[in-house]
Structures are given as C-alpha cells and as structure tokens.
C-alpha cells in the first residue's frame, strides 16, 4: 500500500461529501455529507501520520479531535433539524428561503 492510494480515497470521499452538501435537499443528508468530508480529513491525517512515523503522533491526535468535533456537530445539527421539522413538518433545505435581499 502506498500513501497515494490513501490520499486518493481521501480526495474521493471529500469530493463526494462536497457534492452531497451542494446537491442534497434534505438537511439530514447534508449532515451525512459533511460527515463524509470529515472522514476524508481523518483518512488523510492518519495516512500522513503513519507515512512520516510522526514521533508526536500529531496527525492521529488531530483525527481523534476531529472525530469528537464531528460528533458534537451532528448533535447540534440534529437538534436544529428537529426544531425545524417540528415547525414545518419538513427538513427540506430549499424550502427555507423566507429571507431574501
């Protein structure tokens, strides 16, 4: 296994996530796409870390923090989506366009 294979996987996941964030209309799926992007970041970080044999393990440390951050983000995101669903009976992002200008 070479580092480039991991990086390709990372970039592919990141691109899929970015595509999902832009095109998906359901807020929950947008959240899932963001998770995909953060997973790509983790793959990159761990791959580089093991490639360098980093003594400080800073890449793996950061990926642990990213996992924790992603969990916190999902908790907040689901809370916001639930709140919107209660008010509108829908979690469609495109319908949320009350304010313009």
């Amino acid at each position, binding site marked *: 296994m070479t580092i480039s294979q991991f990086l390709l996987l990372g970039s592919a996941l990141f691109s899929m996530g970015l595509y999902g964030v832009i095109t998906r209309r359901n807020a929950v799926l947008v959240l899932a796409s963001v998770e995909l992007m953060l997973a790509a970041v983790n793959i990159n*970080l761990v791959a580089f870390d093991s*490639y360098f044999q980093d003594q400080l393990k800073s890449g793996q440390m950061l990926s642990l923090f990213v996992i924790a951050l992603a969990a916190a983000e999902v908790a907040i995101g689901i809370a916001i989506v639930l709140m919107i669903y209660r008010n509108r009976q829908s979690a469609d992002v495109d319908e949320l366009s009350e304010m313009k*200008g």
Partner: protein
Amino acid sequence: MTNLDYHALLPEIILAATVMVTLVVDLITRRKQLVAVTAIIGMFAAFVPVTTLAFCDSLSFCTSSGAERVLFDGTYVVDSYSLVLKGVFIFAAFIVLLVSVGYLGSDRYYEGEYYFLLIASTLGAVAMASSRDFLTMIVALELVTAPAFLLSGWRKGDSKSNEAALKFFITGVLALALTLFGVSMLYGLTGSLLFADVAAAAPGISHIPLFILAVIFIILGFGFKVSAVPFHFWTPDTYEGAPTPVTAWLSVGSKGAGFVGLLSVVYLALPSESAIWGPLLWIVAALSMIVGNVVAIQQTNVIRMLGYSSIGHAGFMLAPFGAAAASGMTDLSPLFGATVTYFIIYAVMNLGAFGVAIIIGSRVGSYELDDWRGWRRYAPGVTLMLAMFFMSLAGIPPLAGWFAKFAMFSATIGVGNWWGYSIAIVAAVNAVIAFVYYAKVIRATMFDPVPDGVDVAELEAKTVPGTAGLAVGIAAFGVIVLGVFPGIAAELGSFSTSMFAALGG
C-alpha cells in the same frame, strides 16, 4: 515537564469556571437575573488577569519571563497579540451580555442556557487568540461557532430564527471541513501542526501545487467564518433571523475569531508565502467591500443593513492582507497591526450600533427602517446615540471609525506598490458608498416625520432597559475616546505587532 504558568492561563480558567458556575446557578435558582449577574461578574473577573498580564513588567507580584509566555510546547502562546485580542473579545462579550439581559427578559426565552453558551463561545474566542498550532486552533474555532449555531436558533418557534440557525450551521460545518482538509494536506507536506514548524518548512515546498491548494482550502474556510464575499451568502439571513444580541456577538465575536485565525495562519504559519495568499485575499477584500457596501444601500431592514455593512467592514479589514501580495515583502507587521487596530475599533462601534438597534427595535417591535422614522420625536437621546455610532461606522471624525480607516489606508499605501495602492483606491471608493446607507438611517430617524398611526405617547412612556443603556453608554464612551485619542488604538495595534520582534522578523 515544567510547572504550568497559571497566571498566563488565568483568563481561560476563569471563563471555564464561569461556564460551570452559570450552569449550577441556573439549576439552583428560579431568578434568572442571578445567572446573568454571575456571567457578568465572571466576564469582569476574566478581564483582570488580561490586564495584569499585559502590564506584567510594571507589577511587583508578577514574576515575568518576558512578555511572551509559551505553554504546552509552543502550541499555546500568551503574547502581546493574543492579550490585545483577548481583551477585545472579553469586552465584546461583556457588552453583549449587558444587552442580552433586557432582551431576554422581554419575551419567553431560555435564559440560563443562553448565558452558558455565550460564555462558552467567548472562551473559544479567547483560546483562539493564543493558539499557535492547528489542533488548538480548530478546537478553539469550533468552541466559538458551535454554541453560536445554537444561539442563532434561540427563538425556537420563529421560522426565521430556524432558517438562520440552519444556514449558519451548514456553512459553518462546510467551512470547518474545508479548513480541516487544507490542514491535513499542509500536515502531509510539512509533517507538523505547529505554526512555527510550518513557517520554517514553507519556503522549501511553496512550489508544490498541493501546497498552494492547501493554502487555498484553509483561506476558503476562514472566508466563510469572516463572512467575506463570495462566502457571505449566509450572513444577512443569519443576522436577520437570529436574536439580535446574538447577531451582535456573531458580528464581533465569531467574525473576530475568524480574523484571529486568519491572522495567525497567514502571518505566523505562512509569512513567506504572501505571493500565494496575498492576491487571493486582495480579490476577496475588494469583492467584500464592493458587494457589502453596494447591496447594503438597497436594504430596508436595519439589521440586514448592518449585516451587509459588516461584510463591507470585513473587506476593509482584509485590505491590508491583500496589500501584502507584493513579492519581497519582508516586514509585514504594519499590515498586521492595521488589521488589529481596525478590528478593535470596529468591535466597539459595531457593538454600540447593535446595542442602539436592539433598544429601538424591541420598543417598536420591528427592525424595518420605515417603522423607525421620526425617532427623534420620542427618544432624542437614543437617536443621538444611533447617529453617533452610524457616523462612526461611516468613518467621520472625531468618532473612532475614522482612525480605523486611516490606519488601514496608511498601511496599504505604505506598502508602496500597486497591490497596496489599488486596494486603497477600492477602499476609498467604498468608504464613500458606505456613507450613503449610514446617512439614510440617520436621516430617517432624525429628520423624517413620524409614520401615521404610531402612538407617540405610548412609545415615549417606555424606558430604556438599564443594562442595555449601560452597554450603549460604555460603547459610546469608547467610540469618543478612541476617536479623540486615536493613539490608544494605534498603541494597542502596534503592541500586538511586538511579537513579530520576538519571532525575529
């Protein structure tokens, strides 16, 4: 492992303790005012160590190892730059807290949790100013924005507030993912997350396309956080929909944290690569100024107008970054100092403007400019304050705003080549455009007749909430003092650049 420098960490420790204490106080008492009092006392207490650290050399009890205190193997540094910004963030949070007390009391809001989240967000901003590696920076950045996502949706039943929260949340996490992806690539190229290590490795790898891509990704992520054009589309909607005190915090605290991150990354981690980030930020700065100010003219809602105005001000703050694009820049400290000076003054006057807007808006029940006409008839004092803050935002002497613009112009022109001149010209044109919409608000409130069907006597009878009045008074005092004695802001700005000397250029 050396002993921990508790004095250097004291602001963060006090804020973290306040976060916990507000939660406990909220649980044990039904009088929510007590939670607010706890929060305000905590904020006050956190400001004390910031000042003792700043004046450490002249204090007898302070055992100093110089102005710079390096903690946790260089990942967390308390130096002049971080102290100045910590002071601004704590001041901003203090004003927002004061404004929030009256606002939350006016309707059925969850109060205890509100203060808890606001102080957590402040803690993030304060930690952001000290972080000197990407890990600390990302965690601090999320600590700033994650509570802000929740705060912007605080009016749970209001669909505008819902929309504000979701838009802010999606762009916020997208920005986080973009920044992190850039950081992962930068880590792959340099093998370290420390800004100092990245700065040392950068000149050797700056020709690699992946490096350029990494820098672009990181700046893209921060572009969302500072709401610069073309990453601004969430800003007006979030600002309008969120509860107004939260908007005030977003426009100073959250945006400021983004600027601190950008300043640290650009000037501390990538100082030698101004040929890459300079032109990029030049375009972003010019676009932000033009779009922010031109679109603001058409706005009828004052908060939305202030949202676009804050985009324009982000452009003014980014202008010195753009001026650094010239190759062969060795001394970046004047540009760095100009952005810090601008941010300090912007924080004071923008908080004041929001404070007055909240006072007027909660009395009228609307933020539409048409409903604000003729305010001088029933509240001359408040209207005068409003006129003062808006004139300061427009940059009219002797109010503080003029010096912010002056510092920005003198730094960009001081670069002495066309990167600097051109951005200064764009800024000058936009400073004039900005005057149009600020003057529109002043004219409507000062000179226009009262709209039909408004009960003047009823509006006259209402009083300004004491805490909000205090907040506006403090901001007004700041705006006048900083405008008449601009040396203070200039001193703070150049004090913040003294860490460049410690870095050796």
